[in-house]
């Protein structure tokens, strides 16, 4: 079966089975990493965009895309990387946000637009994904992966990750 036998919807469905290697509860489609998929006589072209410039998971994601498509009989896969528009956490939909929360990661708040960052500005606290309290504190803007920040909840005393708004 060549790539062109599958519809665009079917291809998106296959790509939706590819989970983020570091946050395995949401897919690369839900994250907004997959920007487009096209099929023609030469095979399938998947257009992706990186989350963070240095995200080490991007290579793994490319391999996982090839594997998932090959299981569906698509052997000719081209992966194109685009940088514009720049990836934003605003592309993560409500269903995926709930999956993050249930997994113990506070979902990203909407990205604030604006000019030069105000250095001392403190944004609203991230709600605790475990108990829902807003009595939480940002401990570090850099966590276990590029996309996460570390918080602590003063209500339930639980440290937690936040998918930081970008």
């Amino acid at each position: 079966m060549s790539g062109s036998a599958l519809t665009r919807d079917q291809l998106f469905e296959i790509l939706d089975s590819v989970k983020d290697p570091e946050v395995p509860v949401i897919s690369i489609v839900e994250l907004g990493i997959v920007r487009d998929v096209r099929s023609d006589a030469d095979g399938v072209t998947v257009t992706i965009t990186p989350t963070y410039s240095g995200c080490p998971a991007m290579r793994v994601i490319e391999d996982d895309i090839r594997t998932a498509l090959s299981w569906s009989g698509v052997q000719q896969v081209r992966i194109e990387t685009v940088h514009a528009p720049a990836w934003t956490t605003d592309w993560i939909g409500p269903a995926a946000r709930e999956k993050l929360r249930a997994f113990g990661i506070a979902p990203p708040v909407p990205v604030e637009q604006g000019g030069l960052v105000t250095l001392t500005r403190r944004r609203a606290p991230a709600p605790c994904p475990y108990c829902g309290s807003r009595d939480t504190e940002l401990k570090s803007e850099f966590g276990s992966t590029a996309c996460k920040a570390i918080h602590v909840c003063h209500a339930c005393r639980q440290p937690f990750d936040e998918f930081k708004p970008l």
Partner: protein
Amino acid sequence: MAPASPAAPRTPAVENPLFEYVVRLGDDRLVLGHRVAEWCGHGPILEEDIALSNIALDLTGQAAALLALAGSIEGKGRDEDALAYFRDEPQFRNALLCELPKGDFGVTIVRQFFFDAYSLLLWDALAACTHEKLAALAAKSRKEDTYHLRHSAEWVRKLGDGTPESHERAQRAVDALWRFTGELFERDAIDDAVVSHGIVVDHAALAAKWRELVEGVLREATLTVPAEPGPRATGGRRGRHTEHLGHMLAEMQIVARSHPGATW
């Protein structure tokens, strides 16, 4: 003379100014990213070790994208790895500030703060340029540098307005690094040549904004802005480096050069 005032040093004619321009951007981040990565496993506290490693990763990732773009502009088949691992010291175009040894935590933080402030302002300008691919990378990198600057500026405040020892070390770092900041805002023939590619940066405005931002944070940190800029350290953009870069490259490049073409 202010350290951040633009100057016009002589630059030998180059074959491809656009390539040269993008390599400068890539090399700043590659070299600084490597220096910051030297803290991995050596951070003063675990959160800081993680933060510095994340920042190093962002800078290296930005460098990879910029050097890949430079390679495609050059059109001679060199990719980002060829440019990172198979050029020698005189071919590197980073500012000298980026290659200095990591020093103590005060030096690392003050250097990072000086660079982050410059980098964020530069991305602001480049995101608005009409060179589509560079503007895309600028818009993306700008988001990451926002976090970097918030991190380094907060630490400058903590160290400057902290204990007598942290204040003294932070001030020492400011005094030692100040004369390396002027190079960031120099304008030369390469900058003039890329205007025809839609890359227009007002170096004087950039320098003025940088000074305002940096001096504001230093004041809040109870640190003193050096009265005398000192002799400006410059040359990196033309391949004339301090003795430190060669040692750093030896370590950074040895694996790729010992096993050319290896994959893992």
